């Protein structure tokens, strides 16, 4: 059941052009120049109910603009958008009732008040029936361990505690869809794990559709079986995480530690020397053309080695390469 349909979404902004320096600042007082910036350019995708999707892209790629359109904050310049059957920009309030949003950088909780008060106010805003509210509160308090600080003013909470509060706040009204914008940013490892467990749980138990925007690729690896990659306003990849890894993660690094200082002309056929420091040499190779075993044998034929290890491609590297090199299925250049 498709819950989100986006077709040919496009968003163009007009921006004022500012010249640098004092002269420019004074000039700006008298005349203004504009330029058009295409933030989102022909984005299309569909999400089914209950999916958990990672929405990734470098800064300025159009991620937050897309999210703003989905949440009803921004009106698309053109294209079709439907969330749970509603056009967000046309029926803002109805759409708002269906969604929950967690902005990692900014809390929706009321700073000066105990956590509990924020929940109470949100309950009236979302008009959550009392029974359901108490039920949800009990449930979240338990899995997010909120009991301890339910009566503490939000400004005294640690980042991790506040984030857990924000999650509970977002879910209070049983939204069909939640948008998570950098939810684990700044958290320590333990807190991140707790949040990830929570996300996974609500998706599994309640069938909540989750769209996760993050720069922490560990979030992606742990949570989202599907990722949509956006760059320069366009979707450059939309599919299973695994497929990306197998198709794109063809580059590996063999790290060898030599017994004696490696010579300046250290070279091994089928691999590229990507870096060296003292006795350690990093050899990059394409696993499609050469297996690790074969490469190790070649190295051993030529040099005395005391240690080897293999660096697997992680999502971080893969995605970074896609940002830098652009997504092409067979692109990763075979080494000479």
């Amino acid at each position, binding site marked *: 059941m498709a819950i989100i349909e986006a077709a040919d979404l496009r968003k163009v*902004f007009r921006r004022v052009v500012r010249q640098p320096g004092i002269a420019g600042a004074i000039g700006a007082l008298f005349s203004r120049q504009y330029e058009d910036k295409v933030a989102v350019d022909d984005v299309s995708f569909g999400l089914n109910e209950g999916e958990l999707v990672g929405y990734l892209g470098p800064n300025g790629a159009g991620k937050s603009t897309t999210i703003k359109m989905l949440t009803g904050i921004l009106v698309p310049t053109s294209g079709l958008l439907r969330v749970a059957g509603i056009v967000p920009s046309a029926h803002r309030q109805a759409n*708002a009732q269906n969604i929950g949003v967690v902005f990692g950088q*900014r809390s929706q909780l009321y700073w*000066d*008040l105990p956590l509990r008060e924020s929940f109470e106010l949100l309950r*009236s*805003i979302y*008009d959550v029936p009392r029974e359901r509210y108490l039920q949800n509160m009990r449930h979240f308090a338990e899995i997010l361990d909120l009991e301890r600080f339910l009566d503490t*003013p939000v400004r005294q909470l640690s980042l991790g505690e506040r984030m857990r509060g924000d999650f509970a706040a977002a879910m209070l009204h049983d939204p069909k869809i939640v948008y998570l914008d950098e939810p684990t940013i700044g958290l320590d490892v333990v807190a991140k794990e707790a949040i990830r467990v929570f996300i996974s749980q609500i998706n599994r138990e309640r069938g909540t559709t989750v769209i996760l925007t993050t720069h922490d690729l560990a979030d992606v690896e742990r949570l989202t079986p599907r990722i949509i990659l956006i760059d320069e306003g366009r979707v450059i990849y939309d599919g299973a995480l695994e497929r990306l890894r197998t198709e794109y993660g063809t580059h590996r690094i063999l790290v060898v530690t030599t017994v004696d200082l490696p010579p300046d002309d250290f070279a091994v056929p089928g691999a590229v020397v990507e870096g060296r420091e003292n006795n350690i040499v990093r050899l990059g190779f394409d696993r499609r053309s050469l297996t690790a075993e074969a490469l190790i044998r070649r190295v051993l034929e030529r040099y005395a080695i005391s240690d080897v290890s293999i660096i697997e491609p992680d999502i971080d590297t893969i995605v970074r390469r896609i940002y830098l090199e652009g997504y092409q299925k067979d692109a990763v250049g075979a080494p000479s």
Partner: protein
Amino acid sequence: MQSRRMANVYRQYWRINLLTTLEYRENFLIWFLFTFIYHGTAIASLWIVLERFPSMNGWNFRDMFFLYALWMVAHALHNTFFSSVGEIPDHIRDGEFDRLLVRPLDTLFQAIATPGQVFPDELVLALITFVAATLYSGVHVDAIFVIFVPLIVIGGALIDLGLNLIISTAAFWFVKVDALRWIFIQLEQEFTRYPLSIYSRSVRLLLTFVFPFAFMNYFPASYFLHKHEAALGVPPVAGLLTPVIGIVFVAAAYAFWRFGLNRYQGVGH
């Protein structure tokens, strides 16, 4: 039902305001001192000037005191209930405003019902001042006075709200509207202090038909003080129309707000 929901939220909002204000008691005290000095210096200035120049177009200090007090109540009423509208530009600038768009309630209502500290002390001070001014000026307190003054004060608060809303709406276009707000606040304060009759014709037109500050206190005051000026051919009894003027002005401001909001959702900020 939307209105039931809004009533609930509004009730919660006031509960939270009370809690927050009690949290920050010391802050409350110093702001009360400020309010006192702010209005105090204004009234003191009037007194000092009128000691030396006893009549201003026929208005003496008692009249001017009443004029000021009437404005003060309307202004304080607005500050107590609608001051959060003035914080909208900050929310737009720091992105908090988007949060309101993501919630299932009217954005302006949410902006008004944003919990924070409240300072009802200004209203209390204003009411006391007004009672004192009424007695001191010798105004005849008849049925019309008792019925209309609350309405006029509410109308005045709506005029203030309208202005506040217009300036906040400007934030959809300009990053900083603090300067703009400051000017209007200054102007409102200073122009409402004196009887309309001292101003040139264009100013009188502006304050009557464009930004109806004159209806906040001048017209009602001239009516109750039995002043026989008819600046611009508008008789003092028009002061009884202030509630209507207030509603019309705030409706116009609201239309502008909706226009600005639509634009914001089109072009971002």
